[in-house]
């Protein structure tokens, strides 16, 4: 890697993965303790990220304008007015809002540790239940989108990368265009063309499987374009590597080489980006859930921020942070499975 291969997404890859590659010739016991140290380090890091995200969410919510009890009452009533002290006292008492902020914070962190995220102000039920209701559609959507993105990516890159300047340029232009498509716009156009006009898919996606395709595709196309940009460069670089030439000399067919050697080699940046995408698709999910009338955590989040339903907001933040942490641990794992240099060492 030259020092200027800058925006190559490889730069996004945490250095721990490189560090692991530099472990040859260490005794098994030392290696084991190193591995344990790394696992502990990773878990500690994950805990810190969770705590940081939870604290940030708490602070941000605490900084929101207005008296929280007033907001709770006004939103329940649909009126934007001032409230009498008696009305406020009752709410403050019920949710512990009369306590100093720091006490509320410790109460909140203590709750997190025992898995109690509090009660929703608007729905009167535990936040864990609010989230549990909505998490499945979002996870289904996200995973389907990622799977679709990989499918598009593999087909498109294998088909077009390193096929001469004409096809390459075409492939790359499509990647760039796809990566730049705004979710909401793509979603609206897909909905209008395929649901409203052609009637191939339901207009209200709801939770049925037929309704999953368009929302997932909306998230998948830009993601495929984004990963494609990174993969294409790696793919074309890998095609010129000695092992490819030697494979060709051994008489291996072009497709075999592309699929068996080059793809595996060049998918590393895309794997990393997938971990990142898992977190980022949450933001995209809000838009998609709105456009396609799907249930999901994104819509709940927007509603909760609008209603200043603080326990729900903080609960979702912690959840997203947790998903992000898990996704990255999985990516680490996938990484060491795919990268030949890592397994051979």
């Amino acid at each position, binding site marked *: 890697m030259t020092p200027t291969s800058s925006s190559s997404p490889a730069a996004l890859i945490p250095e721990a993965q490189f560090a692991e590659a530099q472990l040859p010739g260490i005794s098994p016991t030392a290696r084991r303790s190193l591995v344990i140290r790394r696992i502990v380090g990773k878990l500690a890091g994950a805990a810190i990220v969770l705590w940081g995200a939870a604290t940030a969410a708490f602070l941000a919510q605490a900084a*929101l*304008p*207005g*008296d929280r009890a*007033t*907001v709770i*009452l*006004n*939103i*329940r*009533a*649909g*009126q*934007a*007015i*001032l409230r*009498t002290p008696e009305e406020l006292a*009752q709410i403050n008492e019920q949710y512990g809002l009369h306590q100093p902020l720091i006490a509320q914070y410790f109460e909140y962190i203590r709750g997190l540790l025992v898995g109690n995220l509090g009660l929703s102000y*608007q*729905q*009167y*039920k535990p936040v864990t239940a*609010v989230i549990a*209701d*909505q998490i499945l559609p979002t996870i289904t959507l996200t995973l389907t989108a990622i799977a679709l993105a990989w499918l598009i990516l593999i087909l498109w890159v294998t088909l077009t990368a390193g096929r001469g*300047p*004409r096809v390459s*340029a*075409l492939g790359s*232009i*499509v990647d760039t*265009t796809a990566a730049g498509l705004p979710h909401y716009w793509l979603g609206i*156009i897909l*909905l*209008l*063309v395929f*649901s*409203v*006009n052609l*009637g191939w898919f*339901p*207009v*209200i996606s*709801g*939770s049925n499987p037929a309704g999953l395709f368009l929302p997932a595709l909306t998230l998948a196309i830009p993601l495929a374009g984004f990963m494609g940009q990174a993969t294409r460069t790696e793919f074309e670089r890998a095609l010129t590597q000695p092992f490819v030439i030697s494979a060709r000399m051994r008489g291996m067919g072009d497709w075999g080489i592309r699929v068996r050697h080059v793809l595996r080699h060049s998918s590393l940046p895309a794997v990393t980006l997938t971990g990142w995408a898992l977190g980022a698709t949450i933001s995209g999910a809000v838009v998609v*859930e*709105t*456009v*396609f*009338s*799907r*249930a*999901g955590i994104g*819509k*709940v989040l927007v*509603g909760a*921020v*609008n*209603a*200043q339903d603080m326990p729900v907001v903080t609960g979702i933040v912690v959840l997203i942070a947790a998903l992000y942490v898990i996704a990255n641990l999985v990516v680490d794992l996938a990484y060491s499975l795919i990268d030949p240099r890592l397994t051979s060492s």
Partner: protein
Amino acid sequence: MSRKLSTVLPLLAAGLVTTFVMAGCAGGGAAVAPAADATRVEGGTIVYGHQQEPACVFGGWIEQAYLSSQVLDGLVSLDENHEVVPWLADSWSVSPDQLTWTFTLKNGVSFTDGTPVNAEAIAYNFDYWLGGGNSTAKVWLEGYYSSASAIDAQTVQINLSQPYPRLVDNLTQGYFGIQSQQALTSRTKEENCESPVGSGAFVVDTWNRGEDILLKRNEAYTSPPANAKHSGVAYVDAIDWKFVADPTTRAASLTSGETDAIYDVPAIEWKNLEAAGYQLEKFITPGRPQQLSFNTVSGPFADEKVRQAFAYSLDRKALVETIGQGVIPYEGNGGVSQSTPGYSQAAADAYSYDPKKASALLDAAGWKPGADGYRQKDGTTLSVVLPYGAGSIINADGASILQGVQEQAKAAGFQVKLVPVPQSAFFAGEYSTPEERDIAAGYWTAVTSGILWINWRANTTETPNYNNSAFYNDPELEALITAANNTVDVDAQNALYGQAQEYIADHALSIGLYDRLSTLAVSPSLKDVWQENAQGGPIFYDAYFVK
């Protein structure tokens, strides 16, 4: 060649997309009209697309009233002639001093948990609302209600602290749905939030948050309101009450057959749906219309001339009729909407587009034309702040109309600063003081002109009234409204309410913009869906499918 291809391709793709989209617009789904001799089919599930998902079934939002009135019965109902008719109460009377109301209940009605709908339960519900169970119900009763008690099993007595002749009219609103006392006292808040127990035509079966609520038929239903079209249980088995926030998607779901009825039909889709054979219903909600009330205590609008000049500078009618596609009605009256009893046409006609008058009034008030097109006085620009609850109180059409107001007022020399206030900030009370805003936009649904009392009663430290959005404390106006509220004779009462509206118009305290609508579009294969007459909510009890 390659370079050409790579640049031409995206353009080609864009062109293709455009063609597809345009083609999409050309085709409008024609409704599958049932045959002329179509007959009623038993059962079935009505799939209904609603716009907003509430946090609970029962509550103080109008959206909740629509939903909870499927599940809860009220004491009384309103018929299409605006007469109060029996529902759970068979009859009622009021004492000569107007302070004691007595309701006699229908016999043999039970809540769906098996407990009887008796006087004790009714009395409990009144106290429950006042204690915070329904904040909107509370606003209507507060200051009048003193206690409720059961005389015997079927007779309940409501004691007032001052006369309230239109009490029963107000009780027709969905906020006053009656719930089982046992359910309210023995179940958790969460249970009462998600599936309140009433005696209504439907019961809450499941609520898939973010998606829909399934309402199942109450198989033991015996208590429809007197203005219903049939008696006994509902014709359909269930209602699938779906939440579809996007208006375009809602309309498309109807034409694609995914829903049988939708709420809040986008004005732009109205004509096409009508032409395709869908049943379209439009209900102008009574009460305060979407209006602009002026800050009468500070800023430029403290001067009555400037308020009048603003009113004359707007061509509200043309603006509303264009943006509203002829569907949204123009409303000139700032006090109450045209469907409200006691509506004053004179107040509505007080101001029409007259730039000359606007200009003369501003000249007289000392605001001279300035360099940048905005008027000035003593070095200050004629600049006013108009905050609005974007996406909550004011929808997309409304935001468009407000931008039109801004542009029209600009021609007269007003600089209108539009501030869309996010929901959380709006309900946190931002822009609620005279220092923060010059114009307040908003509506409030009601059954009678009694809404004037809520919106215009003086705001004092002893009896605060934060709903007085013009900050206008005036004994004369308040005396008119109070006198009206206490008048038993409906005609005399409405005459007084009319005077109050004219007073509001004469002093340009508030000007109307458009009427808030409750609209429905229904598939031709679904018959007898109607809108109740208090707030325009959809009623599915009488509805049935034909084939």
